Every structure is written in C-alpha cells, then in structure tokens.
C-alpha cells in the first residue's frame, strides 16, 4: 500500500532476537501511524503496571504514512510510558530521522529488553544490526552522532541519548539530526535503561505515493498557503519560535520566577528579535520544510541550535535570568547532555522558589546566570544536588514538603504560557494525556494568535469544545507525523487531501477526526488504568487561587471546574474522567 511500507520491526535487546511485527489489516486505517499506531502497539505490548525503566517496557520509534513524501514529513514519534509522569507518553522530533527511517525500510521499530552492555542499532535496507556502543557511552549527543555517522554512513540520520539518558535522568531527551529533540517525558531515560545509545538509519528506498500528480498540485498550493500565513510565512522564518517572547509578555502571560508573575521586564533582551540581531548565524529547516523556524546560533564561546521559545523562557525569564548568551549556552548544554529544557527550567524554577523560602539546601538564587550550566551538568550526571534535580519538579517539591511549588500537571512541567491569561490553554494543560504540555492542544492559536479565529482568552465559553477538537486534531497530525506548525496554516481538509493523495485511500474529514478522538481516548483509557482520574486533571493551586499581580492578565485565575465538567461531557467520559462504555464502543476501542 502506498504511504506505509508495511514493515514494523521488533528488537529484543536482551536476547538479540528480531522479528517483523504483523499489523492487523485495519490498524493503519484506524490509527494511521506515528503516535496513534505507536500507542496502540504499546498498549498491546505493555500494561499500565509496567515500570518505565524496566527491561520489559517497550520503546517505540514510529513514522506515519506521509513520512518522506510531503512538506515537514521528516518527523518521528517515540512512544512509551513516561518515567517522569507514569502516563502514556509520546514525544515528537523534527529533522529528517523519520523520513530516513522509512528510506531505510521501516515504518517503525519496537525495542524491548535490555542489552548487557551499551549498543547502538544500525538500520539499513530493512535490516537491523546491533553494534557495540561501549566506546560511545559517556559521549554527548553531538559527539555520539558524529561517531555513529563515522561508523555507519555519512548520510545516516542518528537519534541518540547523551549522559542524561545514560544516567536515567527522568526528563532525558533523545536528540537527532544534531539538535532536534524528542524532548518531553523522559524518553531518553527509557532508552538509557535499555543500554541503547543510538539508532542510525540510512537508505534510499522511495516511499510509494499513490497519486503523484495530485500531490504535486497540492504541494504548490501548500507552499503558497504557508507563505501567505503571517505566522508560518513571516514570524517563524524570520524570528523563530522566540518571536513569542514579546507576544506573550505583551499579554502578561510570560511566566517569571516560577509563574509568580506574568510580565518580564527584560523580555526584549531575550526575544526572537534580539536573537536575530545578536546570535543568529542562519535559519535551519527540517526535512522538506518551507518554514525554517530553526536557529543556528553562536555565542562568544560556542555555537549550536536555538534557543527555542520554550527554552529561552525556561532557562531565562522563569529563573529571572536575562543574560541571553548564558541562556543560549545553557540550551546548548541541555542539547548536548540530552535534557528536556522545559522540565530542566521548570525544576530549577521550583528549586529557586524553595530556596528563596529557605526549605531547600542548595545555593539557588533568582537570576543566577553564572551557575546555570553547572546545574545542568550536575543534573545530567546526577551529581550532588543534581541527583535531586534529575527527578523533576514534582518529586523535588514533594521531598521538601511544598508540592504546590512544582508548576506541573501529572508530573510534567508546564511550559511558557501562564494559564491564567488564557482559559482554553489552561484546560488544555489540565487535561493533557501526557501532563503539562502545550502541544496536545495549542489554544494559544485562537486565544492569542487569532488562528483560525480570535477567541476571547478570558472567557470559558466554548473552550471545552475547542480544546477537545484541538486535542483530536493534534493526535491526528502526530499520527500522520507532520509538523504541528502546519496546523497554523491549514485545516483538516488539507490533511485529508494529503493522506488520500499519498495512500490512495478515501478518508473523509470526519473519519480522520474520529481517528484523532480514538487515539486520544485510547491514551486516556491507558492512563485511567494506571490510576489517573479527575484529580489529576488539575493545575497547581497557584493558577486556581493566586491572581496575577500585574500586566494585561492582572487579577486573573483559572476557572477550571466549570470547563472540566463540560469537557468530560463532550468527550463522553464520566464525572471522574473515565471514558464511558458507550464511548469506548462507539470509537471501536
């Protein structure tokens, strides 16, 4: 069938055994690929009781039917149970790894077991070779990628972990194609727990496309749509994702000092505009991407990629740090060591708040840019106080008796949007299946950027419907394994057109949205079985009780309960957030 190669491999690192996993005929239609098919596979292989860092846990690398064909189709998804949150988790990354994995002959790869000693996998022509990685253990992600490319193929795309993953830091990430990261949820720790240092993929296999002429016309149209869209055509290419610094600050929802304030006085100095004029070397783009939001940057001491908006906030304003060079180098360090910048910054923010209150023994002060890189280094190697930071903010705050100081949902640190300034975004954070994440439903689109239309950000009316819709669309796009920035420019119909053009099938918009809803509900069902319920669909008390002190979001708190009941009703879940039997049945789960 066009689009899919029909080949998902499974490797048991304990025994070295490999097999091709047979996929039931209807799964591709019902779960597509990427996140959807990955979650479906995961839930059949592992139970909600599986220890994320145990050998029997599965780590799944998945592509979707569009990888290697249309714009932004270089992405891939990593699916497993998160050691940080204990929810089901998928983490997405850009670059070209997803496209090259298919060119190497696989739709996806399931990894179970634990190698006796460090290994890496070389994947080519649909075959998987397990190679020794003892000499790579301890190398950072950049060194690892260079070494693995040297040992395999100069055109190989490499996904790997750094020291943080090796040391099973709970928010370790997986890096590929230099600095693209599957950042959230600690997928790097799962990889490290398997003694798996890297995956190298290379090959020239063409991905079959059912209707090349239709795809050519669609691509020409998409180029213009993306180019004409003010966000994908101007803001992101010119200023990168950090264009949001000034935007969010102007709305009074750019979190400062662990979300105690929403306006950062030094925002201009760490903005996308400032990065463009002081650090930017060139734009960088993922596979077949016309947007090119990536930033290749250089400080006086180092060069690398980023920082992205979330990172410049997490390692900057959130900690009261306005030294852009220090933030940028801290971001480089996170990339090299393999750490999620959002959770790193969120955890440091929590530590600083605890220290300011005198309940935390570390020498942490707001605005201490000089210590930033050493804290990050200590965390990756689990040295000294770093071993406590390596557990994430929730465990840290609980240990010191102040759980409310952790700005997290379900254990995952909330990113750079103060939910008090956007009620829909607040609901999206609270109900996200993988915890405090902006990517499950990016309500900043309608509430701040006006895409597809402006919605009143302080109103709760209609937000439950929109959050559920966006979550379903996001699950869909993650399963097609395309970049979510495309969502800012195109609607569901275009995704349907892409899928039908590549696969030759006849999906309707409604069917695709139902696929998204099915995936979201499947994830929810797994979480419910793992013990999550309404209690976990909440936000830190700060957002529900403490009003923002200043700025355009002044005096606001989140009105969560009134939205949550409506959200459950729309989802077909009971009052405790458990999918009702008829919902499960309707979605064919």
């Amino acid at each position, binding site marked *: 069938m066009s689009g899919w190669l029909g080949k998902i491999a499974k490797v048991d690192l304990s025994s070295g055994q490999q097999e091709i996993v047979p996929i039931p005929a209807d799964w591709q239609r019902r779960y597509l690929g990427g996140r959807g098919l990955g979650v479906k596979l995961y839930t059949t292989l592992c139970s909600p009781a599986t220890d994320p860092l145990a050998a029997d846990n599965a780590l799944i690398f998945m592509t979707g039917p569009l990888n290697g064909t249309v714009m932004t189709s270089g992405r891939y998804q990593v699916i497993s149970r998160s050691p940080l949150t204990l929810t089901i988790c998928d983490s997405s990354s850009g670059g070209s790894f997803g496209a090259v994995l298919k060119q190497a002959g696989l739709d996806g790869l399931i990894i179970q077991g634990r190698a006796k000693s460090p290994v890496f996998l070389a994947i080519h022509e649909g075959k998987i070779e397990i190679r020794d990685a003892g000499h790579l253990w301890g190398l950072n992600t950049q060194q690892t990628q260079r070494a693995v490319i040297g040992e395999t193929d100069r055109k190989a795309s490499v996904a790997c972990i750094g020291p943080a993953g090796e040391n099973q830091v709970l928010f370790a990430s997986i890096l590929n194609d230099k600095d693209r990261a599957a950042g959230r949820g600690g997928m790097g720790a799962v990889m490290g727990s398997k003694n798996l240092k890297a995956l190298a993929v290379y090959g020239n296999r063409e991905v079959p496309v059912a209707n090349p002429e239709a795809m050519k016309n669609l691509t020409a149209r998409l180029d213009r749509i993306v180019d*004409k869209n003010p966000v994908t055509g101007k803001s992101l290419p010119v200023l990168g994702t950090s264009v949001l610094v000034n935007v969010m600050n102007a709305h009074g929802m750019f979190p400062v000092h662990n979300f105690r304030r929403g306006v950062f006085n030094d925002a201009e100095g760490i903005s996308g505009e400032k990065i463009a004029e002081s650090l930017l070397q060139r734009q960088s783009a993922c596979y077949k991407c016309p947007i090119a939001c990536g930033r290749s940057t250089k400080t006086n001491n180092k060069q690398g990629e980023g920082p992205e908006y979330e990172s410049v906030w997490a390692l900057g304003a959130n900690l009261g740090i306005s030294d852009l060079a220090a933030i940028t180098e801290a971001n480089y360090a996170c990339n090299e060591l393999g750490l999620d910048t959002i959770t790193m910054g969120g955890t440091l923010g929590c530590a600083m708040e605890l220290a300011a209150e005198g309940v935390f023994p570390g020498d942490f002060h707001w605005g201490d840019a000089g210590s930033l890189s050493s804290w990050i280094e200590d965390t990756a190697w689990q040295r000294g106080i770093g071993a406590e930071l390596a557990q994430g903010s929730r465990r840290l705050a609980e240990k010191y008796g102040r759980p409310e100081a952790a700005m997290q949902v379900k254990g995952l640190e909330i990113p750079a949007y103060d939910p008090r300034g956007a009620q829909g975004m607040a609901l999206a954070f609270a109900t996200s299946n993988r915890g405090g994440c902006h990517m499950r439903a990016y309500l900043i689109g309608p509430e701040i950027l006006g895409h597809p239309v402006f919605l009143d950000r302080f109103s709760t009316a209609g937000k439950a419907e929109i959050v559920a819709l966006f979550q379903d669309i996001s699950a869909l796009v993650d399963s097609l394994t395309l970049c979510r920035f495309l969502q800012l420019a195109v609607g569901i119909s275009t995704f349907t057109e892409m899928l039908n053009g590549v696969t030759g099938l006849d999906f309707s918009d409604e069917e695709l949205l139902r696929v998204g809803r099915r995936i979201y509900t499947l994830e929810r069902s797994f979480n419910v079985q793992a013990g999550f319920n309404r209690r976990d669909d909440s936000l830190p008390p700060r957002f529900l009780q403490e009003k923002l002190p200043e700025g355009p979001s002044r005096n606001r708190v989140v009105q969560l309960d009134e939205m949550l009941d409506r959200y459950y009703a729309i989802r077909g879940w009971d009052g405790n957030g458990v999918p009702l039997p008829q919902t499960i049945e309707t979605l064919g789960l």
Partner: protein
Amino acid sequence: MIDHTELSAHSGEKKITQLCNEARTFGFFAVCINPVWVRTASEKLQGSEVVVCSVVGFPLGASTSQAKAFEARQAVAAGAREIDMVINVGALREKKEDLAGSDIRAVVEASHPALVKVILETCYLTDEEIVSGCELAVAAGAKFVKTSTGFGAFGAFPDHVCLMRRTVGPDIGVKASGGIRNFKDAWRMIQAGASRLGVSASVAIVEGLSLLQFAPFAWLEDEIPCHICPSRYASLDKQPKAVYAYYKKKCLTCRHLDMYNRFYE
C-alpha cells in the same frame, strides 16, 4: 461569494497565476486584481466560471473621472467583467454629490457590459456619509457598493456593512473587503448583510472552514463588541480629524461601554 484578491504593488505574474489556479481549485466567484494583470488573468481563467474583476482609480479614488473611465474601458476590453472603482472620497465628504455622482456614472457607462462596484472607503466616512455614498452609487447605476480598498485606516466592519445593506436594499450587492482574515470575520460580514467578500486570505478562510464544521457554536460564540467596532480602530494618524472624533464620540456613548470597559484598562 468570494472575490479572491491580490492587489499588492509587488505582485507579479507568478502570484497572479497562482491566484487564478486557487480560484479555479476552490471555485471562488472572481479574482480581483490590478488592471495591469487583467489580460493575463483572463487568459489563465479561460474556460472556467471564475470572473475577472479589475480595480479602477485605486486605491485613492482621486483620479479624474475621464482617467477612471479610460482605465475601466481598457480593463473591460482586456476581459474584466466586473469593475471595482473607488469613489471620489473628498467630494463625498464635502457633500459635492454632483461631482461624486458623475464620477461614478462615467465609470458605469465606460464599463458596460461589466458591472460596477463602488468602493466607499468607509474608514474615511461618517455613517451619514456612508449612506450618502450608497445612494449616489445606486443612483449612478452601480450594482454593488463596497466597503474598503484594504489600503485605508481600517477595513470592513459589520456595522458598516449592515448600514450599507439597509441603505441599498436587497437588490443591490454589498461587498465587504479589507481585514477579512478568517472564517469568523467572513461569517460576521455575511450576517451583517454582505453578498460578496473581497479577500486575499480566501484560502485560509476555506482552510479554517474545515474546522468550523466541528464545534461550530464554540467557534462562533458571541464576542466582545469592542473587538469588531470601528471606533476601537479609529486613528488620528490615519483618519481625518473630524472622522476620528466622530468614531471616538460614538465609543463614549456606546451602550456596551459599561459592560466591556475592562478592555480600556
């Protein structure tokens, strides 16, 4: 319903070709372009139902009537079936109805058999002047009145569209244009009485529409009236002093002021 529009100074043949392709693909009513591209667009759209619409006296409306008529005649000869002319805004504001009316009539006559839409450029007008402009256009034989060029202080607002519809009645078209960027903007204009939309973000509107079918009521929740009121966008830099003062005065006496004054914090 949609005039797929590309009127920027820097548009070249490549963009016009793409515009025509999109109009064919999505079935837009017309492409609205500068006169220099009318022949090109007519050729590109041969065999399709998409109409070519040219602007005249654009964007200031300050050319002589003869120049506007000549421009219109040439556009029609090149294949335009609709002409969007800009009214003599200065004459209208000074209540020189004869001058403004004869200007429109000259273009209507020169454009035959193409239909003429009269752009009032509402951002420079009070409500009274908008009514007067509509009446002049209808009397001069125009088949449509249109809100804006997209180059003025602001574009279309539902209040203005509603006023224009009330003035011209059901038999004359009302085209809303300028600042219509998404399906909600479009929906508002249609609700207010627009029978045609001039949009450069037409494809984005269609893309967005595929979301509207899901959770429609949530997307179309009532919103703060100030967000869609011309008074909020009045600008002393961009508008005549008297018009600016007119809109600000409306704002101060607005019935919504008490409820929504939080937006003026």
